[in-house]
C-alpha cells in the first residue's frame, strides 16, 4: 500500500498532572479515507487529535504525517498538512473578520496578495459561505461559525482534515448540510465523534478508542453492529436507529 497520510505508532501520553490519557495507540490512515474516531467521554480522543499536529508531544511512540515525523523542525509543515477543526468555533475563529480568519493560516505560511485572496475565496466557497467574508465571526450563527472554522483549515490546503465533534450543537438541517459539504471535499478526513449515525453516513471505516487504547478498527457498520463491544465501551445508537 502507499505511504499512509497518518501513521501513529505506540502513542502514549500522560498529562503533566500525572493523568495517563493514552496507552500505546496505533493508527494508520491512507489518502482519500474518511475515518470516524469513536469513543465515550474522556476516552482520550481530543488528546489524541492534539498529537497529530504536534500541539502535544508524545510521551512514547511516534506520529508521522506522509512520511514527515512530527517533531520540532518540521512543525510548521506538519501544521499545514494536518488541519484540526476544534470543537468550539469560538476558539477557532479569533480574528475580527471572517476573511482575516481564513487568511490567518496561509498568511503564516507566507502566502500574500492575490494568491492569498484566491485561497480565502476558494476555502469559503468549499463550505458555501462566500458571502460572509466581511462579517465578524461573533455575529454569525453557530452553523455558519462551524463552516467558517472548517474553511480556516481548508485554506491551508491540508492533506488530512481532523474534525473534533463536527456535528455537535447543529440543528438537523445544518447537520445534513455539513455532511454534504464534508462529502464534497477532496481530502482525507479523521472525524472525532459521539454521533454514531453521522459516522455511518460519512465514514466507511471506524476506530473505537476507549480508556486510551484502540479497541476496534473496521468497517463502520460492522463495528456498530457489534452490540456487545458497543455496550462495553459506552457507545449507544440513538433510539429508533438501526444499522
Amino acid at each position: 500500500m502507499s505511504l499512509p497520510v497518518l501513521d501513529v505508532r505506540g502513542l502514549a501520553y500522560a498529562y503533566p498532572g500525572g493523568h495517563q490519557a493514552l496507552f500505546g495507540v496505533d493508527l494508520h490512515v491512507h489518502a482519500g479515507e474518511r475515518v470516524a474516531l469513536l469513543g465515550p467521554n474522556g476516552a482520550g480522543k481530543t488528546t489524541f487529535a492534539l498529537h497529530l499536529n504536534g500541539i502535544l508531544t508524545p510521551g512514547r511512540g511516534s506520529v508521522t504525517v506522509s512520511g514527515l515525523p512530527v517533531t520540532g523542525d518540521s512543525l510548521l509543515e506538519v501544521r499545514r498538512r494536518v488541519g484540526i477543526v476544534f470543537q468550539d468555533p469560538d476558539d477557532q475563529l479569533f480574528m475580527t473578520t471572517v476573511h482575516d480568519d481564513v487568511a490567518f493560516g496561509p498568511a503564516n505560511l507566507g502566502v500574500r496578495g492575490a494568491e492569498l485572496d484566491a485561497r480565502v475565496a476558494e476555502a469559503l466557497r468549499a463550505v458555501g459561505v462566500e458571502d460572509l467574508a466581511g462579517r465578524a465571526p461573533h455575529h454569525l450563527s453557530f452553523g455558519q461559525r462551524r463552516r467558517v472554522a472548517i474553511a480556516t483549515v481548508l485554506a491551508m490546503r491540508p492533506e488530512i482534515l481532523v474534525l473534533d465533534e463536527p456535528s455537535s450543537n447543529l440543528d438537523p438541517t445544518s447537520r445534513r448540510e455539513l455532511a454534504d459539504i464534508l462529502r464534497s471535499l477532496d481530502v482525507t478526513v479523521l472525524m472525532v465523534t459521539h454521533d454514531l449515525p453521522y459516522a455511518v453516513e460519512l465514514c466507511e471505516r471506524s476506530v473505537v478508542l476507549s480508556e486510551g487504547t484502540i479497541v476496534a478498527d473496521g468497517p463502520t457498520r460492522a463495528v456498530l453492529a457489534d452490540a456487545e463491544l458497543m455496550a462495553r465501551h459506552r457507545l449507544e445508537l440513538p433510539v429508533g436507529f438501526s444499522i
Partner: protein
Amino acid sequence: MGSGHSAHLHVDGASLLHRLPPQVKLVGLLSFVLAVVSVPAGSLVALGCLVALAAALLLSTGVAPRHLAARLVVALPVVVFALALPFVASGPDSAFGPLTVSSTGVTAAWTVLAKGLTGVLSAVAFAVTTPPTDLVAALQRLRAPALVVVVLSFMVRYLSVVTEELARMRVARESRGFRGRGLRAWPVLAAASGALFVRSYERGERVHLAMLSRGFSGRLPETSPLTARPGEWATALVPATLALTASVAARL
C-alpha cells in the same frame, strides 16, 4: 444573544470621514488634538473657531444627533471642571453680575473647556466613523508594537463572548433565586468573577492552541494591507494644519 446588545460606538454611513482610510484618520485625529493643545491659553477667538471646526466635523458624519449626544456624555467632567474654575481659582477678581469670579480662572476655564471639547468632539467623530476592526488594522499599519495589536484585536473579538458568558452566569444565578443586592450578595459575585476569570483564561489557552495549529509565530499577519492616496492624507491633515496655524498666529 448577539453582540448587537453591546454598545458599539461605530455607526454606518457614507460621509467623507467614513470613507477616509482608518490609519489616515487616526494620524489626522492625533495631530489635530496635539495642535489644539499647543494653542496658547487665552487665545479665545482661535480656540472658539477650533471648537466650531470640531463640531462641524462631527456633524459632517451625518450621524443622528440623538446618537451623538449619548456619546458626548464623556465630555461632562470637562465641562463641570471648567465651570468650577472661575470660582475656585485665585488671582485678580472681577464682578460677574452679583458674583465675584477670578479673571485668571475665567481665561483658564475657557481654555480648558475649548481644548477639552475639541478633543472630545473630534474623538467622537473618529469613533462613530471607524469600526473597531479598522482601528486595529490602522494601528497595525502604523507599526504599533505587535503585542498591542494582538491584545487589541482579541479585545474586539472576545469582548462580546465574555460579556455573554457573564450574562449567562447571571441568568443561571437568578434562575436559582439569587438577588444581586446587599452585602450578602458580595461573596457570590466575587466567586462568579473568579469563575469568569478562569473560564476566560482557559478559553485563552484553547485559542492559543488553535493559533499554533495554524502556524502562528508571534505576529498577526497583515492580510489586507491598508493603502491611502496622497489626497486622502492631505484631506485628513487639514484640521491639524488649521489648528497649527491658529497656534502660531496666536503667538505672533
